[in-house]
């Protein structure tokens, strides 16, 4: 087991390296640079001076080598936009994104399991059709549109919830304030995973409920609720672990759009702004951070899978 984990971590490290090379090449390959974007009419000699200062005039492999050398020591440079050390900038934003994504994922899982189960147990009834249609809509709706609709309803029309930011400016911190700001973004972000997971849980439960051991348990006189909870659910949830693994990168990606609409001060929004303003250090830092998180999540998912299902052995 330890060998497996070490091997996966090693592969993950290689992958991160490859990703860093690819991203580095992409961002440095294009014309124009941070100086030009701040001021398109910048004096060419000033632009060149800036480039020299930042080391952007050297050949790309040299730049990369320098970046890599610094990176492995934990120095990810300073943001061009914010003049703060990259790691600190990332560190400030990460908890916010974790809060948002975590809440969204939690919501999705907590609602998908009962919904999917109900759908499976009461197959082909109104409940099932309603849930299936809702799930279909959930995976098809554009995240930003749902956000706008909710803003129209809850901010413009009803005035219940704030439409942007994480906390109200100028007001002392309160949990209620945070929750009111968190409500809409979390719901929006949770929609796609919820819909996707519901479909999976339903399909999985349908398959499990057709199994012989369920029939046996029923024949033995086991009450239905107990049957569902103790036998069916446990087996049906195994594939869900894999789905969660696939959904994680998507969740982080979806957070980008959601964070932008709701002006949530998270990693996703930082990354988008960095991409637009060619803030190279932040781009590199953010991409690698997100990739690393996904790699770890995949590893955890696979390990969990091995733990939950005793038939699976990790090679």
């Amino acid at each position, binding site marked *: 087991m330890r060998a497996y984990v070490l091997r996966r971590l090693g592969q993950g490290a290689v992958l991160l390296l490859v990703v860093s090379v690819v991203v580095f090449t992409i961002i440095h390959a294009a014309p124009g640079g941070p100086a030009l974007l701040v001021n398109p009419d910048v004096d060419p000699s000033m632009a060149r001076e800036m480039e020299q200062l930042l080391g952007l005039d050297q050949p790309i492999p040299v730049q990369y080598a320098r970046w890599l050398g610094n990176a492995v020591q934990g120095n990810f440079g300073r943001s061009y936009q914010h003049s703060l050390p990259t790691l600190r900038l990332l560190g400030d934003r990460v908890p916010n994104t974790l809060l948002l994504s975590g809440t969204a994922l939690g919501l999705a899982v907590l609602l998908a399991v009962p919904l999917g189960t109900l759908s499976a147990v009461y197959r082909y009834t109104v409940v099932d059709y309603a849930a299936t249609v809702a799930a279909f809509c959930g995976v098809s709706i554009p995240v930003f549109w749902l956000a706008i609709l909710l803003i129209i309803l809850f901010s413009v029309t009803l005035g219940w919830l704030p439409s942007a930011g994480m906390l109200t400016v100028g007001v002392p911190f309160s949990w209620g304030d945070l929750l009111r700001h968190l409500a809409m973004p979390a719901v929006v972000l949770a929609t796609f995973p919820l819909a*996707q997971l519901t479909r999976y849980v339903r399909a999985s439960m349908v398959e499990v409920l057709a199994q012989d051991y369920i029939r046996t348990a029923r024949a033995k006189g086991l009450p239905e609720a107990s049957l569902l909870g103790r036998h069916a659910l446990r087996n049906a949830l195994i594939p869900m672990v894999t789905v969660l693994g696939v959904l994680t990168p998507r969740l982080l990606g979806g957070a980008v759009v959601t964070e932008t609409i709701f002006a949530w001060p998270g990693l996703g929004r930082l990354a988008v702004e960095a991409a637009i303003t060619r803030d190279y250090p932040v781009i590199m830092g953010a991409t690698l951070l997100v990739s690393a998180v996904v790699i770890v999540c995949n590893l955890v998912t696979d390990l969990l899978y091995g733990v939950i299902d005793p038939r699976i052995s990790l090679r």
Partner: protein
Amino acid sequence: MSVPESVVLAAPIGEPAAARGAGYLWRRFRRNRLAVLALGYLVAVHAVAALAPSLPLPAPETMDLLSQFAGPSWEHPLGTDETGRDVLARLAFGARTSLAVGLSAMVMAVAVGTVLGAVSGFYGGPVETLVMRFTDGMLTIPTFFLALLVLAVFGSNIVNVVVVIGLTGWMVVARVVRAEVLRALPQDFVMASRALGVGEARLLVRHLLPQAWPSIIVAATLGVAYAVLTESALSYLGLGVQQPTPTWGNMLTGAQHYVWKSPILAVYPGAAIMGTVLAYNALGDALSDTLDPRHAGS
């Protein structure tokens, strides 16, 4: 890509449904009423998109600052937007752009995915390992962010958008095609073909790949849904198709700013996106059931 592989992979025991002819397939497809509705809707939307220039609509890019946020009228059946452009016309021409991008990106993703999947499944060995590792790697990277990055860096015109979406959505197709090729390889006809002297390349392209058609079609349909959704998100963020070319996504960017003044402007393009994506998803699901019933959901 969000296409769940279990929906797409075939497990035919015995004769695949596709072998029994088009009439049979259509009758089976027809049983799914949602899918038939979806198909009808898609035909309508694509027709509007294709015929948009010939329809009696005002030009989508003509601004008229004297009639901003106008309500529905004979001249502007759905009103006007924040710069006085006709909403209905923008929706129709937006359909043109969004669907064109969606379909092209899908074609690209399917092409790349099929080639990679077929090659890795057929040749096996180090080729397979390399391709599969590459695929897994791509699935690990946050592709939406990568797409944003590439578009921010290289500029966001229609071609770039299509390429970027295509190059971030091929992975599921590759996995599916590889699985199909691996499933088809042990069959007797492969051995027979080889014995008859059929070349390896010909065997792959003309005999093995057709086995994968149903799965590829399903993946392609779901791929269009993904592409349209992604294009709209990118355009919404301002990194996709640029104004004044209308696309459903960038119509929403404008609408969002004026959500306090004219919320209805946000409803139309979003509904269009959702309707189309929903229809493609439903179609894909139904095709999956029709062409390969063994793994059908319910």
